[in-house]
């Protein structure tokens, strides 16, 4: 028996969800009434409120069934993949990297065939007909948006068909098991509905498990991030020399293959732009925070602080556009060549440059630095300021020699967080920094960053079998490790700092 992924035009999972919901609702009603009637219709004779008996039954029906369904849906692709592996001629598998690529081709063909069948472009007979020579398949599937780098090989089609059959069978069994589990669960819940049964405690324990599940989603997300990038990065390093990636000096992707894919020029661009941004944001943000927390009266503070926070709430795409269309041309007007340049220095030839992106990113980070520093400066106890004033120090001496040194760890933490923001920022650099990878000290030149390359390697036609696409995951992983390191250190510093004055 096989079942297609959609029934009556609805995804199978949704139908199952509804079916389980109906069973659970029925279980709720029956269990609630049974408990009530066994207590002689008087709710006071029950251990828990009647609705808890119903809830317990609904919980027994829904939770194991849906949990099973989720696990099944998540693991089925992996199981199917392993099952069709023997269908691939072992002569084709020269190393593990190639094997992964073939497997991903198989799953993409299978997915494409599903789409084609659903849209009526192909039917089973047509697929069988091209089993030995599936040359046309590439075009057919390409028209549906499933692009391939090369013609589909017969064994790939065979494996794809096998995986579709297996997946169909898998869905059938899932359907049976899920519904059975739901029914058994509901039955148990109804049978247990007895006045002495501690329904509330059971339901509450269930809710608690649910809460724990929600809380662990954060950990799960981190795992998801790390694993998803790790696997594809490993694939990348199978196809591309790791030494070239980490130590090479040229970034020149070439979709015909044989590319230079080194992170150093990108890392240089990232660091350079972040540095410019911090040079703008840290002094301005810090002085703004000092002024607001130490000097400004309540009225100025009440106006200036929310205004600064507006800068923080503006989406980065706006800053990107601002860089590309306003700040970039403005800088060209000043430093540009020929008649355009006011200074006549001919330093800048295009609107996209390190300086453009850095300046705008700096503006974006000002409120970030200032609000973090503001918190930190406010946490410095007033008694220290009094001590300094009492000795006859001026306000600025107090700030520079007592408040700032006391707040230093916290401020360092804030700057590290700002740096991590700058390194991970995407839209401003995509629009404002340019696309040329180079290691140069000239801030008027266009350079490119890790994030812009991730975007450009992963948008448009992507082929997950080529190092040019997969490199994005290695870049992403590097970016993640880099920012994670900064964040962990920064958060640790800030936390220890706060505890010192609590």
């Amino acid at each position, binding site marked *: 028996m096989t079942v297609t992924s959609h029934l009556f035009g609805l995804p199978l999972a949704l139908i199952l969800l509804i079916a389980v919901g109906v069973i659970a609702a029925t279980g709720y009603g029956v269990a609630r009434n049974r408990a009530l009637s066994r207590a002689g219709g008087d709710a006071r004779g029950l251990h828990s409120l009647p609705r808890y008996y119903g809830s317990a039954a609904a919980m027994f029906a829904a939770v194991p069934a849906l949990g099973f369904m989720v696990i099944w849906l998540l693991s089925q692709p992996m199981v199917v993949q392993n099952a069709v592996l023997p269908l691939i001629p072992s002569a084709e598998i020269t190393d593990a990297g190639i094997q992964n690529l073939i497997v991903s081709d198989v799953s993409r063909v299978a997915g494409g065939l599903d789409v084609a069948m659903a849209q009526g472009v192909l039917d089973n007979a047509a697929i069988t007909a091209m089993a030995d020579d599936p040359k046309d398949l590439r075009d057919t599937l390409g028209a549906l948006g499933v692009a391939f780098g090369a013609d589909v090989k017969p064994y790939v089609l065979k494996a794809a068909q096998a995986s579709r059959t297996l997946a169909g069978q898998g869905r059938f069994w899932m359907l049976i098991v899920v519904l059975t589990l739901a029914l058994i669960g509901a039955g148990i819940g109804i049978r247990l509905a007895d006045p002495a049964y501690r329904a509330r405690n059971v339901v509450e324990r269930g809710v608690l498990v649910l*809460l724990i599940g929600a809380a662990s*989603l954060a950990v799960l997300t981190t795992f998801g991030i790390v694993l998803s*990038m790790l696997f594809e990065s490993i694939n990348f390093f199978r196809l591309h020399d790791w030494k070239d990636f980490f130590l090479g000096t040229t970034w020149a992707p070439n979709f015909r293959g044989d590319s230079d894919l080194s992170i150093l020029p990108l890392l240089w661009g990232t660091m350079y732009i972040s540095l410019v941004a911090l040079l703008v944001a840290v002094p301005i943000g810090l002085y703004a925070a000092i002024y607001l927390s130490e000097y400004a009266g309540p009225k100025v503070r009440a106006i200036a602080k929310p205004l600064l926070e507006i800068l923080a709430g503006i989406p980065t795409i706006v800053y990107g556009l601002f860089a590309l269309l306003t700040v970039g041309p403005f800088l060209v007007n000043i430093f540009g060549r020929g008649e355009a340049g006011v200074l006549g220095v001919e330093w800048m030839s295009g609107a996209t440059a390190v300086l453009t992106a850095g300046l705008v990113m700096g503006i974006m980070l000002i409120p970030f630095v200032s609000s973090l520093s503001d918190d930190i400066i406010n946490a410095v106890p007033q008694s220290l300021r009094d001590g300094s004033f009492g000795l006859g120090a001026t306000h600025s001496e107090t700030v520079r020699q007592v408040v700032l040194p006391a707040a230093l760890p916290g401020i360092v933490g804030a700057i590290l967080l700002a740096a991590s923001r700058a390194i991970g920022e995407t839209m401003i650099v995509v629009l404002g920094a340019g696309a040329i990878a180079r290691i140069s000290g000239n801030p008027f030149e266009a350079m490119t960053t890790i994030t812009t390359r991730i975007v450009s390697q992963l948008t448009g036609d992507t082929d997950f079998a080529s190092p040019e696409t997969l490199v994005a995951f290695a870049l992403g992983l590097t970016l993640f490790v880099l920012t994670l390191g900064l964040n962990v250190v920064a958060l640790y510093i800030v936390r220890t700092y706060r505890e010192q004055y609590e």
Partner: protein
Amino acid sequence: MKQSSLLVQDARTLKRNRAEARFRAYGIAAIVISLLMLTVLLVTIIGRGTGAFQQTYVTLPVELLENKLDKKGNRDLADIKKVSTFGYAPLMADAFEAKVVQAGIETSLSPKKMAAILSKDAAAQLRSFVVANVDKIGETVEFEFLTNSRVDGYLKGRVSRDSIANDKNITPEQLDLVDQLISDGALEKRFNFAFVTGADASDARPEAAGIGVSMIGSFFMMLVVLALALPIGVAASIYLEEFAPKNWITDIIEVNISNLAAVPSIVFGILGLAVFINYMHLPNSAPLVGGLVLTLMTLPTIIISTRASLKSVPPSIRDAALGVGASKMQSVFHHVLPLAAPGILTGTIIGLAQALGETAPLLLIGMVGFIASNPPETLAEGLMSPNSAMPAQIYEWAKRADPAFYERAWGGIIILLLFLITMNAIAVLLRRRFERRW
């Protein structure tokens, strides 16, 4: 020991006071610079974006000639549909010729050149009218057509006679015609509803591009974020704040959440691409996927603010509930949660606003480009069929070569900012209205 009189400031004190004044001036300068930047940014957005809310239209009576549109004369829809938009071009040329004669305009332009001031959208507009109103064939109907983006730019001051010297899309003679049509009252700028409601358009038709459909894409994403991030975020916060024992597992979760809040958004895009699209085979460019990615991204923010609201409910409330025999769970759900609700809501709205403006992860899951030309009709279609989102649409326009699209991008930013301002204002009002001091 110095014994200077207090009334005379010695040189050192004067120097110190000058340093003090300087330091203070730096602070003021920092504030002034920041606020100046904000002003420049806002002035730029408004100055360059308001143009998108106006568009140039020509009012033109067009005779729907039977011999061009329905040669057989039997009003058979199938036959009429066979006439492509190219077949409609002569009608508009004729209409211009008639218009010029009627208004007494002198021009050396051929009728075809005159019609070229119209948008490439105009023929399609005419055709869809005819297909919908077959009975009007043979009559003269008055239409309002979009002009092309050069003419529109001429009226808005973006295009001048000097700037078109090397422009193949428009000639000075055509601009003469435009001037005369303006004085005739047939050509004018008007409020541009199509920008707020319409879909993106291809590279050659910037005048027809609108942000409406991507706004719907954003709406469906926000729906997903709200439906997932709020319950999951609240559940996670309740556990961490009310039930979690203090041990290393809880510590790991907490460190994790604060770190996730600082992970670059593009990393969430990579996660979405790898997990939701490549592994789970959810459709590319679907708002559902965008919503899932943004949910994961917003969760830490919502958890952090929800925990702060829960923490601000005094323990005496919990004790009171426990004191009358409620279970821990009941005390939390019946008493603590309702009291924390305004704070939770405020945090959620701010998280949603953050998600609404996020672009980078959407680029990786394919929600960018000229994707959807029609608004989705059902919930399922809205969630599953390819669409863009407001910030991604703005990005798409910013990348195109024609400056007419830049005006669209700035205009889109105005709309995006209006949404964000509204959301933040609601959050502020909620906070003011329900702020409670224990």
